[in-house]
Structure formats: C-alpha cells, structure tokens
C-alpha cells in the first residue's frame, strides 16, 4: 500500500502572530516556519504503518513556495520515502489544494491519504473532506486511532461527546487529530538519509489546475485585547449584564 501525506508549511506554533500593518494578512517575513503540527502527526502515522509492514511507501506532498521543500525534507527525515513539491508562491485555498491533490492521487495511485485535520494558520479544516468528495472516496475525519486490516481502515473519530468508530473501504482519506500519536524526532542518521531522497518538482499548471484564489480577504485584524473583569453588586445586576452586555443568556 502506498500512503500519500500532504504537508503544509505554516508559521511555527510557538511564534506570536502579528497582523500586517495594512491588515492584508499576518506577518511571515523573518518568522520561523514549520510543518503544520497535525501534518506531522499524519507523517508519523504513515511511517508507523510502513514500519508495521502495512504500507510499502510513504510519499509527502506540499504545495507552496520554494521553502515548502524544507517542510518536505522534514517529512523525509521523519521517514517518508520521497517528496513531491508543487511550487506556488501565492495563497492557495483548500479547494485548489484538493484539486491538486486529486491530480497527484490519480498519478501516484495511493490507497490511503493521511492529512492533518486542519492547518493551524487558516484553521479551514476543509482540504481532506473536499479531496474525498472530488475523488468519491471514503473519508474518516478527526482520527484519534487508525487500524488497517482486511482491506479497510478502522478509524476512531473524536466527535462531540465521545468517540465514534467507523469502518472505511480503501482507498480512503483519513484526517488525523491531536491524540493519534506523538510525532518522533528525526534522528541524525535519518536526517543524513533524507538528503539523498528525491523531491519531484512541479507547478500547478502541470496538473491543469488554476490555483487563483476564489475568495477575497477583506481584512485581517488582531483579536481585541482582553479586558479586566468587573465586580457586580447583586445577582440581578449580573443577570442583567449577562443579558444586555455579554448577550449570553
């Protein structure tokens, strides 16, 4: 079985995000970038499947600027076998990513696509689902457990109020949640090996996909700074404020 893992280059989770002065987006110049943490979990799971003998090959794919190759290289150092880079400098929306991934899937023929449930930059949580719809494949989202057996995938999903276990037919898309595993460190020998692993370079046009955004960002702004609390004199006043000011009851 071949496993495809899309990985996204995002602002590192430790970085304090700053909004650009003109409100057009967030500052990414001179900011530490890393692999989306949910994608790291997906890579880890794919490598574990390979180590357990359930998968033969793990292919990491990233869509983004030249530096997205660094993200692919990180996946290779964790144990992925090879990479595919689709170079695109501007913003890419989930639908464009899903269309590009569909083309990669048709070319590569994986039986399983493991994605992070969402990227921590735009928090869209759409790509996996859109890809499943475009391909007409089964999907299991927010996986906290994954077992491959009898030509299918058993996925335990984290849903509101508990866990739901579903059985999927392969090929399938599985989007992974935080508790699926703890991603490994890339060891020094594997970092050295990653250098020799191939990364195929492509452009969106190679797959006949136009990644031009369909949405226009009107404005990006900082969340309002947290205000200090106040003391109320009576329960009546509290109820009143909850109704009229906080508007929660």
């Amino acid at each position, binding site marked *: 079985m071949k496993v495809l893992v899309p990985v996204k280059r995002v602002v590192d989770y430790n970085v304090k995000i700053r909004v650009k002065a003109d409100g057009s987006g967030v500052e990414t110049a001179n900011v530490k970038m*890393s692999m989306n943490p949910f994608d790291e979990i997906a890579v880890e799971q794919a490598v574990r499947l390979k180590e357990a003998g359930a998968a033969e090959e793990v292919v990491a794919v990233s869509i983004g600027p030249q530096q997205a190759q*660094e993200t692919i*290289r*990180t996946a290779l*150092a964790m144990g992925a076998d090879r990479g595919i880079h689709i170079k695109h400098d501007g913003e890419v929306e989930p639908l464009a990513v899903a269309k590009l991934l569909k083309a990669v899937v048709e070319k590569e023929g994986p039986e399983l696509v493991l994605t992070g449930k969402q990227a921590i930059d735009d928090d869209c949580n759409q790509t996996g689902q859109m890809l499943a719809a475009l391909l007409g494949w089964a999907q299991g989202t927010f996986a906290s457990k994954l077992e491959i057996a009898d030509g299918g995938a058993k996925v335990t999903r984290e849903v509101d109020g508990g866990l739901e276990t579903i059985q999927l037919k392969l090929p399938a898309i599985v989007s992974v949640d935080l508790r699926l595993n703890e991603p490994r*460190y*890339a*060891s*020094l*020998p*594997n*970092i*050295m090996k*990653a*250098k020799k692993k191939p990364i195929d370079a492509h452009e969106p046009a190679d797959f006949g996909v136009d990644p031009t955004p369909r949405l226009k960002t009107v404005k990006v702004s900082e969340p309002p700074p947290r205000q200090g609390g106040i003391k109320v004199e009576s329960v009546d006043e509290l109820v009143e404020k909850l109704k009229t000011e906080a508007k929660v009851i």
Partner: protein
Amino acid sequence: MDFSPSEEQRLLIEMARRFVEEELYPHERTVEETDEVPVEVAERIKQKSRELGLYAAAMPEELGGGGLDTLSMTMLDRELGRASYALHYTVYRPSNILQACVGEQREKYLLPCIRGEKVDCLAMTEPGAGSDVRGMNCRAVRDGDDFVINGTKHFISHADWADFVILMAATGEEDGPRGPRKKITTFLIDKGWPGFTIRPGYKNVSMRGYHNFILEFDDCRVPASQVLGEVDKGFDVANDWLGATRLQVAGTCLGRCDRALELATQWAVDRKQFGQPIGKFQGVSFKLADMALRLRQAELVTYEAAWKHDQGTMTDSDAAMAKLAATEALAFIADEAIQIHGGMGLMNELPLEMIWRDARLERIWEGTSEIQRHIISRGLLRPLGG
C-alpha cells in the same frame, strides 16, 4: 559567501532544540540543587541521545559515529549548550584524540566509546602545571617493556563517569627553539589499574553536577602498548586532535548566549515599570542591542573557524579567536541579562544565575582568555620575527 545553514543542519538544529527542551531542561533544577545528575536521568538521556544519533555525533560514520563535520557539530553544541553543562555532557562525545588509537586500542577504547559502552576522561592539568602544560611533573619512566608513572593530576573532569583516562605525562627532555623543554607521552590507563587512584576534587561555583577529580599515580606500571600515538610525541597527538575542543567550548557558549538573550528580550517586553515595558527605556534596549551584536560577532568568528577546520585550514589563532570571542561574549551577555532582570535575574527560578555562574569557568578552561590572546598575538608577531 553563503552563510545559510544546510538542510541537514537546519533539521539537526530543530531536532536538537526539541531534545534539549524535552529531555534536558526539565532536570536542570534538580542538578543545580543536588549537584548530581540522577542515575536514571543520565541513563534516559544516554539512551535517547543514542537513538537520535546525537551520541558520539562527531565521530566518523565508518566507526559508528554520527559523521558530523566540525561546523555541524559546532551548531549541535550550540543547541546542547543551552542546557546545564552536566546534562549537556551526558550526551557524551568521546575525546577526538581517541582517533589516534591503533590496533587493539581501537577495539578496547575507541569503538566501545562510540558504542556507548565506555567513557573516557582527559588528564593534562596538574597543580603546578595549568597554562604551562609542559611544566608538568607527572612523569613516566621507561622500564623494560613498561612505563612506571608517578605524579598527580587535578581538575580532571568527569573522571567519575569515565572507565579509563587519557593521561599526558613527561617522558624526558629535549632542546626546543627556546631552550630545553619536556617531552610528553600520552597513555591510556584503565580505572582500577594498580598504582592509579582517583579522589574527589574541589567544590566549585560552576557546572553543578559535573565534577572534577584528583588523579594520583604511585609507581603505576603500564605496558608500552598503552601509549596513544608515539612515545615522546604526546604534544603532537594533542595538537592534532584537541584544537577542535576550543570550538566545542565556543559552540556551547553561543547556545547559552542565545538563551540568556532570549530571556532578557522577553523580560524587556513583559516587565513594566513607570507605566511601560522596560524595553522602551533606552537604558535597557541599548543593552539588548549590544548583547545581540556581541553574540553575532562570536557566532561568525566561531562558525568561520569551524568551517576552516572542515577545510583543513584552521589555524591555532582561528580556534583561539573563536574561544575568546564566544566565552567573553557569554560573560557579557549573562551579566547584562541579569542586569536587565534586576533582582529576579539572581533568583534560581530562572536559569540566568546558572548561566552566569557557569560562564565564569568558560574563560578559564581549555586555555584562559590570556592564553588565547597569547596565541593570537603570537600568530601576528612570529612571522615578523617578533
């Protein structure tokens, strides 16, 4: 000139940073308070660092090491150097000089060190021979196929963790360009060898948990097969292999500079006095600028020396400049970081007091700042006959 780290170096730095934050930082307080690395902590760090290939990372790949070049190793030292030195050193690297092992010595000393089965320590310094290494009194006298060793070594780091010692002893005198000088021979001596005893050294202000010892040799008889390199050529062996040790000190200091500067910068943003963050006051912000500059200078000098070492063109002066720049930058940055923090900087809630205490040793070991200046100035004067 390309100053950007390679892909492998970037990945190595990321991995090492995570290792330091998850495996070393959590034990720092214990080590500082008890002056010991708990055995189970040392074992876990050793195991983890071997899994990651950080153990013996600078040893050649064909010997089972990590095969890192000097520049990458210096970058690794920078990351590991962020943490307490005792914990940092638990991620052990065999002394480079062990690569001079030949024949059975390789099986007995070099390879077990790389595999993590044995640990070495290096004994050069004596109570009467510090900077003046050749002034050593510990002597080895040839007696048939053996050498008989007598003398005392002190300030011998981690002799408690070591299984054997790499000992330098005087084996005679020769005429040098500036008068008679001692000939030195290097020996490999196992702990427990008759006539060789180890006792605890001195309590000291720096590097808690990383101890120094006093080694005594009393008619200690070792066969000539224990000589590392050639008889009387101990200084050459040392010069061939120990130059990179100064880069290790420099790399370690860069890591602690990073950490102190990061803490001071964050504090300057978070701490408010007179109604604003203290970083808004020039008295604080200019300190940060000077700290950042000193760090950058030390980084460039150190990385250039390491790069030259990889090209085979590093001079004594290059290594001395790296060691001098990085250790003195650390002294400055640690001190200013505490000044920016005020009283909090001295409390053991923060790692700054540890960094500040440890920084003091860095300007002394592996050649004092004065010896480094001597080496640098010698490189200037000698070619002109001065």
